[in-house]
């Protein structure tokens, strides 16, 4: 029993030490090779894959995105990248932020989103991905009359390849309630 207690306590302490090292020292990133990979695996398994610094040290700008779909007759419809389901909408916001925060990633993500939209709207010939960042004035600037503005950070056009038009696309993400 004593051995069980010592072993159990040691394991708990080791786990907590690793958690602290993951978030304060950035341990997994610093260790190369298989040991580093093992630590990254434990990092993920134990839920330490984020550093728990919610909204800190600063609250970042918000983003929003929308898609303009155009069919072969030139008819366009705008679909906002948002959902009435809050739980889903928070995830959309994470995707938009991850995809649009870094300039070098924007094309990759926009292409991926456009592919989903073209897949779920067979009538669409072209999709334009638009993303904007919310610039919020400080409280003092707001009192002086400045108001939040949306600044366009990305606009990309993606056209369906003609040879893809007649191909069967695997029924992937069906059109969700939030994205008509």
């Amino acid at each position, binding site marked *: 029993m004593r051995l069980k207690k010592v072993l159990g306590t040691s394991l708990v302490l080791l786990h907590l030490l690793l958690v602290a090292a993951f978030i304060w020292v950035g341990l997994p990133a610093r260790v190369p090779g298989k040991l580093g*990979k093992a630590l990254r*695996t434990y990092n993920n398994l134990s839920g330490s894959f984020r550093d*728990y*610094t919610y909204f800190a040290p*600063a609250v970042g700008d918000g983003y929003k995105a929308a898609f303009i779909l155009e069919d072969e007759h030139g008819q366009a419809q705008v679909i906002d990248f948002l959902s009435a389901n809050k739980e889903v909408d928070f995830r959309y916001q*994470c995707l938009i932020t991850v995809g649009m925060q870094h300039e070098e990633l924007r094309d990759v993500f926009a292409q991926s989103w456009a592919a989903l939209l073209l897949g779920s709207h067979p009538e669409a010939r072209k999709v334009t991905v638009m993303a904007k960042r919310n610039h919020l004035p400080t409280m003092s600037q707001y009192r002086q009359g400045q108001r939040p503005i949306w600044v366009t950070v990305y606009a990309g056009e993606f056209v369906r390849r003609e040879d893809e038009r007649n191909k069967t696309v695997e029924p*992937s993400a069906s059109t969700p309630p939030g994205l008509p």
Partner: protein
Amino acid sequence: MRVVWTRVADFFTAPASPRPLGFFRLAVSTLALIQVILLWPYLLQLYGNFGFVQWIIVEADSGNWLPSIGKLCLWLQPYGVSASSCVFGVFGLYAVGLGCLLLGWRTRLSAVTVWLLHSMTVNSGFMSLYGVDTMLHICLFYCAWMPVGSAFSLDQIRGRSSAAPTFIANLGLRALQLHLCIIYLNTGLAKLRGVQWRSGEAIWHALMQPQFAVFDMSWLASVPWLALVMCWSVIIIETGYVIFIWPAKTRPFWLGATIALHVGIGLLMGLWIFSLVMFVMNFSAFGFNLLPRWNRAPTSELDLARTSVV
């Protein structure tokens, strides 16, 4: 020295009731089930091969040995299993596992299964994750090895486990308590380093973000002192947690303040599931044993008798 050592040993290994952990299991599995139900119609968008982030992007070397839904699909493809079936299969199994965990049926097996499946979903959809997923994963990690099935469970009713106080229940609670201290200390110190938090602007920025806006909070700009008080209250509650949550005299107040903070986040920012998960973690770790009813309840004799009858 010996006295200190004994107190440290008691802190970790003195027997404790597993009831707070039983409550923890019930609440965590309920919230995780609600989350799955809310996400179900959107699973293919968020985790599918042709979802918003295609697997080719997600599957770029993750640097760990964890499986993902994409890798599972590759293994199952030769047997005719489609990508979408894989996504629904993983989440379906996860939901069934959560149901078993909720009931406390084969609790350990259910908890380990649910934890591993959640790891797989985290590894597959990490770009769309936010705080609630991190916290739920921590909870499921602890469910996998803590005696969460020893109370309020079918396993206990059927005599497979007992609600008698054990050292492992105490050890589990201590791990959860110390993990919460690390979380709050880290977020508190990170906020303290931020100019936005020290000046009161952070609350303004958070509440005015369109994605979190539940109410029109633009009036806050006219009362900047209130934003400043709110920011510093958050910093004090979070950094002080590691100290003031422990003494019996300050615990009820600090726990109350922390829960109030999360109620505020839920109410003003709409992050209800996140707030509820944080409430469950805090209440299980530090609040459950403050309830006089549970402190009075005799445990070992009752449960041992029940075990022998079953």
